[in-house]
């Protein structure tokens, strides 16, 4: 492997130039690179030119990944948890945009289906719920928790792929498939909430612990030990903290501190400044690549009062009618 230069922005938006040793692009979207100076291994996720031409939304997914990574870094700061992918840098305004993430740990959890011992099952459940809890504390819904995006290294899980993540409270988009996506998410109704991730996490836990294939709601009667996760599939799911408490695990947010929104705003502003600084010279192409944004919260959202307008008009009419006929 020949050393090659890699220029990108740090999460703070500062330009960085590294010399790396990179594996060939066996998967056109992802490869491993090693920073030569420190020996740190990283994952580089990109949108190849050929793929991006046909599927422009891939650029948005990559940007979401960078945006969410930056948000997590800003909010969680130094005590960054092992369960989440760590953004190292990004370069979004080049022909083949990419993000750099900390290296993967362990193997996809599907490899351990039905084979985890009880202590590992418990550790896996706690770790996955910790990840969901931390994301929820940071206002993020992952929306894509499934066996392929959850890795297990024998002591902790690593939740990967934030490209479909969104902020809590944004409108749900029709996304994902049974059994891992919750019904509301599959139908695209209501607002994104941590319960979506809890549903998916519950399914991943069931699949991994029992090794059974599932098409829809699992039958937990044959697996009494999973009773505690039963109500994540119900209409009134518990919170992630409550789930952790049921497993007698402490709430990770007691030891982790989420920075105040001030810090978040600063981080976001830094990200946006860096984006804008980069975007100015290529404003024309930017418009093309963002012609059909997939992330709905950024496009076509009505002002809050708009949905109440018809009701208000109706009320006024009724009052008028009452006044006239009185």
């Amino acid at each position, binding site marked *: 492997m020949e050393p090659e230069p890699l220029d990108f922005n740090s999460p703070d938006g500062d330009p960085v130039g590294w010399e790396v040793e990179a594996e060939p692009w066996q998967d056109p979207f992802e490869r491993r690179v090693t920073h030569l100076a420190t020996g740190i291994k990283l994952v580089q996720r990109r949108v190849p030119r050929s793929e991006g031409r046909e599927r422009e939304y891939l650029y948005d997914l990559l940007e979401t990944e960078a945006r969410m990574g930056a948000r997590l870094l800003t909010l969680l700061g130094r005590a960054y948890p092992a369960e989440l992918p760590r953004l190292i840098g990004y370069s979004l305004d080049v022909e083949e945009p990419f993000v750099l993430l900390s290296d993967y740990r362990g193997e996809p959890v599907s490899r351990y289906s039905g084979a985890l011992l*009880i202590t590992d099952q418990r550790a896996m459940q706690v770790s996955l719920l910790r990840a969901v809890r931390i994301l929820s504390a940071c206002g993020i819904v992952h929306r894509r928790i499934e066996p392929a995006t959850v890795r297990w290294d024998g002591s902790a899980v690593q939740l990967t792929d934030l490209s479909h993540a969104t902020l809590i409270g944004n409108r749900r988009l029709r996304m994902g498939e049974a059994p891992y996506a919750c019904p509301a998410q599959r139908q695209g109704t209501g607002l994104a909430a941590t319960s979506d991730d809890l549903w998916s996490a519950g399914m991943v836990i069931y699949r991994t612990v029992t090794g059974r294939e599932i098409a829809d709601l699992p039958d937990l009667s044959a697996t009494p030990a999973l009773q505690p996760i039963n109500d994540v599939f119900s209409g009134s799911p518990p919170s992630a903290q409550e789930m952790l408490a049921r497993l007698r695990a402490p709430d990770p947010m007691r030891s982790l501190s989420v920075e105040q929104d001030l810090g978040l705003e600063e981080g976001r502003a830094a990200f946006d400044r860096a984006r804008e600084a980069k975007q100015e010279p290529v404003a024309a192409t930017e418009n093309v690549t963002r012609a059909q944004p997939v992330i709905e919260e950024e496009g076509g959202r009505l002002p809050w009062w708009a949905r109440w307008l018809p009701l208000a008009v109706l009320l006024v009419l009724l009052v008028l009618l009452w006044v006239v006929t009185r």
Partner: protein
Amino acid sequence: MNPVVVFDLRKGEEPPRLAGQVLVVTDTGRLAGGQRVLQEVFSSRLVRSVLVVALGPDLRLPPALDGESRRVLWVGDPRGILWNADTGEAAHGPEVSSEAILIDLLTQPEVFDEVVNGLGDIPYGTASPGWRIVAGRIAPEVLSQAFSDVAGRFGGPVQQDTGAFAAPLATALPVLSGSADLPADLLDAFIPEGRVDRLYRRAHEQVDRAVRALDDLRYFTPAPARHAILDEVIAAGRALAEFRDAVTRLLTDVDHTDEDVGEVLTAHGVKFATPAGMGHAEIVAELRADVEGALAERRSLTRLVARLRLLADQSAPIGSAAFAGDCPRICPDELLNALHAPPEFPARLIDRFVYWRRSRAWWREQLSLGPARTALDGLRSLLERVAASEWMLGEARVHTSDAARTLAASLSEICAQVAATLTDWSKAEAGQAAASAALDEEVTVRLRDRGGQLREVIAGDVVDAVAGWLEPGWTSLEHGDYRDAQLGLERRVEETLRQYRYHLAHRGVQERPEFGTGDTGRQELVDAVWRQSQQVVRALRAAPGGQMLQLCGDRDLSLLLRRAHAVRFAPRAVRGQGNPPGVVWTRSGQYAGTLRLVPLRPGTVEENWSGDGA
């Protein structure tokens, strides 16, 4: 019995690792040149007997093949000619070389010895071989299909099984997996005069007192006495609430994985004793009996994996905390509220004095002492059940679950490896040529018709091997070293499968492999294929002078004498009643029939004295 060593002089190699029986294969032209090597073979103390197969016309024997120990089979033309030694009539043979079959036949130690003995009675120890044989070789396409079917059976998806785990012979496993009731002695979990026992008794007595006081309510009972009843009810409610809190707190705070679980429980007045018959060794012994029973019955391995996973799921402890939510269900807050603030006896004069009976019944119902007693007993029974199933049996359940899961993982790995290997075999067989035309093929045809039975026998043999593969892992499981249980498994499976492949190729499916424990289906296959074959009977009883395929050319026939020595042989699995005497029973199952040794006319065997390198 040691295998016969084959030494092919035509390949010009040095002698292989020698053994008691050496079969030297050469052509007649190269025989003289092999003088030195032959001498080496003959002079070795390791070698008991040497049989030389010389292929080609014009037999010239070198000095090394001189004297009493000379045993030579001369194959003038490996394609052979159909020849009746009695009448001298000849006809064209099948026009394919039978060399490979002859060598295959002579590498069977029993046949080798019999041929060597037979040649001892023949002048010059030299004869021309002829035969009438039935081949039992499984046709490659049949074998390929059987391998592929068995691979499919092992590689199939793990069936879903969500019923209850049932193991009729086990005692601990049904209890640990929740499919049998908990033993009564475990369910009596309160230490007399311990903390929870005291709380329970107090609540019980309070409820009793309140009930008694209510029973004593009479028409003329004054108001202060009625108030006293209310006080009793409030006290009962308080005691019940206290007991419920204590139970909830215990369920939430204690877990069987806590280091000091025993002390904490004892301090709270709950018994904590590991029950008899639920130790690691006993659990593994029951698991082993169950798995080996299933293997002996040759049940499907994928089903066994599903069954073990089911056991693992069902025996995994739930954790007492999960039951804490049952407390408010058994003893709802509404009940406690009703007991804390009980309604007064109806105060209106008409209710108090006119409708007295109705008012008393209404009050009795409102005071909820019946539900209070039910709730109290319900809480006690919940705590006792959880104490038994989650605390006392917690460790045993973890062990059961982990051991079952490890076993399931081992079996699943075995299934994957067997399926992959057999798929490879299937592909390799599919590339093989069909059987030789030089033999009577009835048995082969019969084997082809019984592909289903063949598949059962092969699948059964592999299942038999599973018990051996799991054997070294049991001790690790007993000690709870779950990760060690799979050590070396892959290598063991690979080794056994390699041996089995050799076994199938050289000894045949009708012989039980070394690791085999059962013959289910095998005997039926042998009976159907070999014993009922008329051709096997005819080949075994063939007169040595009758028509046979003589392995020589047309012109060579004139060099043969019109008499023959017969060697009759058949796979030992075919052994039964009605066989002719003197049959050599072979361990290999490829061929059955008669091999005749026809002596050469005097003067035909010329000795070549030209020496080495001539």
